[in-house]
């Protein structure tokens, strides 16, 4: 049995109950510890990526970037930025709709923070493991746009209103190809459970869903473009286009509320890149069976400390892959010019939507076509072939002949305390 965060929660809970706390309080404290972990992870990538963005953009523009704060490379630049932002005055413009203006950053932060709850950082390291984890994660991430629109509307400024409207139009359009591209690896994997999708891509890198068929290969790039657009990153950052709209929906914000938008942007960049890594790039697997075998041995052996350490290494692999994708987003931002709003909409509606629809059709027909040429095993979802250890744990025996039709089960029995911690 893999020690999951759910088990950790029960362990924490039973330990706390051993301290003569009531069950409710123990559950509450276990939930608080989990929330603190996820919230800590909400800040960590943001800190790293803000520094990386400054450094990379500096290098791309033939500058040095930050050099002074915290030694030679400016490691502590993000903390210095945060300290500066906290000290700034919290302003609400006279023309603004006060309550909505104040509440908008929280909507953005809560939605991108909550999205991290459904992201498995290593095998079983997931706050809420659900059969519909990916669906719920996309649902929660789609709430971020509400905060941006509210910010744009409530600022009482033309720049902000334009930014909010552009953001709304862009997000509503780009969600369509993004969702279709997310469905393509799901068809291949036969599961919506992110942990399961990650677990079934073990073995050589050829087992990654990216290399499963030509359609998933192209779908990855389409997904990445849409994900970049959904994070409002350049060349799609029309909502805060400095050259036309001052700072778009951020114009009237200052201090900590402004930094909330910024933190949420980096956290959701990490979240969409994490989805890409899990869906296409093998999750926490290195893609080299020898290394993965060394990690999987202690991971499933049952010893808590060793499996925890193995998962920590898996987390490092996952984090490195996702960070690499984030760096690509930063690289794109500082090398490509911003599109016009009509070009942004045209890219989505005239190119990305039809391309993703064709890819979807292709991904559906591909296994069917292969089954006519005799490669029958390629037709079944990878989940039933590549994850034998997972299948052992499903709660009933089904004849192997029906395995192509079977839906993969959730491998990790999430305990109730975990569910409550997630909520």
């Amino acid at each position, binding site marked *: 049995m893999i020690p999951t965060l759910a088990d950790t929660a029960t362990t924490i809970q039973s330990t706390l109950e051993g301290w003569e706390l009531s069950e409710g309080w123990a559950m*509450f404290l276990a939930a608080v510890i989990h929330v603190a972990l996820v919230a800590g992870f909400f800040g960590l990538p943001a800190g790293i990526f803000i520094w990386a963005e400054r450094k990379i953009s500096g290098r791309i523009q033939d500058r040095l970037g930050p050099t002074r704060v915290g030694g030679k490379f400016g490691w502590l630049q993000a903390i210095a930025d945060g300290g500066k932002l906290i000290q700034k005055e919290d302003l609400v413009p006279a023309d603004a709709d006060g309550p909505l203006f104040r509440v908008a950053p929280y909507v953005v932060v809560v939605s991108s923070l909550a999205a991290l709850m459904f992201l498995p950082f290593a095998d079983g390291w997931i706050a809420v493991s659900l*059969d519909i984890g990916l669906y719920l994660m996309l*649902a929660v991430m*789609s*709430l971020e746009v509400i905060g941006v629109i509210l910010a744009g509307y409530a600022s009482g400024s033309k720049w902000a209103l334009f930014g909010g409207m552009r953001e709304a139009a862009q997000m*509503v359009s780009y969600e369509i190809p993004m969702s279709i591209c997310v469905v393509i690896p799901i068809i291949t994997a036969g599961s919506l459970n992110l942990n399961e999708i990650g677990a079934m891509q073990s073995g050589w890198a050829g087992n990654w869903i990216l290399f499963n068929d030509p359609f998933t290969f192209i779908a990855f790039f389409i997904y990445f473009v849409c994900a970049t657009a959904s994070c409002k990153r350049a060349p799609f950052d029309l909502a805060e286009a400095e050259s036309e709209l001052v700072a778009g929906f951020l114009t009237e914000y200052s201090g900590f509320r402004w930094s909330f938008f910024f933190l949420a942007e980096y956290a959701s960049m990490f979240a969409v890149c994490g989805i890409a890594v899990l869906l296409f790039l093998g999750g926490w697997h290195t893609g080299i069976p020898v290394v993965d075998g060394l990690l999987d041995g202690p991971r499933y052996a049952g010893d808590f400390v060793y499996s925890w350490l193995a998962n920590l290494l898996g987390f490092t692999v996952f984090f490195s892959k996702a960070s690499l994708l984030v760096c690509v987003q930063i690289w794109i931002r500082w090398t490509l010019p911003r599109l016009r709003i009509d070009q942004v909409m045209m890219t989505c509606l005239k190119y990305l939507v039809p391309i993703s629809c064709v890819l979807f059709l292709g991904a559906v027909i591909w296994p069917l076509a292969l089954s006519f040429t005799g490669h029958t095993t390629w037709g079944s979802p990878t989940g039933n072939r590549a994850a034998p250890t997972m299948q052992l744990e499903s709660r009933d025996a089904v004849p192997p002949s029906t395995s192509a039709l079977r839906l993969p089960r959730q491998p990790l029995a999430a305990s109730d305390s975990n569910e409550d911690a997630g909520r």
Partner: protein
Amino acid sequence: MTEQTLFFIFAILAGGGALGVVILQDIVRMAFSLIISLGSTAGLFFLLGADFVAATQLLVYVGGTLVLLIFGVMLTASGPFRRIKMSSGETLLGAAVGLLFFSVIAFTVIGVNWQAVPSHREVATTPSDQSGNTSRAIGMRLVGIPADTEIGLRSDSGSRTGYLLPFEIVSVHLLVVLVGAAYLARAKRRESTDATQGDA
């Protein structure tokens, strides 16, 4: 205990948000309190272990419909903060309809023998179902297989039509509505000069 606390928090938020929709006058504030109300309803669904319904509630209503609603307000509003003013007749009519609807729901709730209704934890047979993994059961029901039978083991009991056909009919209907709306709202074709430079 924890569940009850969470239930009361979500219930108060859902009810308060719904009241806010009625009482507030600024359209976007109304939309925001509708967000709170619908989001808390999703939380109530989570408490019931209906994770798929809750996620769909978030995706369709909160993330989809309300974004379009606010977007529509922003596109059509003439002033900076659009307000709704109602005449007293409308208020009275609305209150009467609301009271009638409330009494219908209240009589239904009172009429149910709640002791006989099993809780969702009793209905769910496996730990996995109890923790709210309903997507599999819903998917099986959609294609007409009762949730407790395995795929592959054909059961002859009951019809096998499921809800797939109604679902498809509704989705095709929605597609027709979408195409029709796009046709009605399309930019009217002008004479040759503009038509050539449409895709700049």
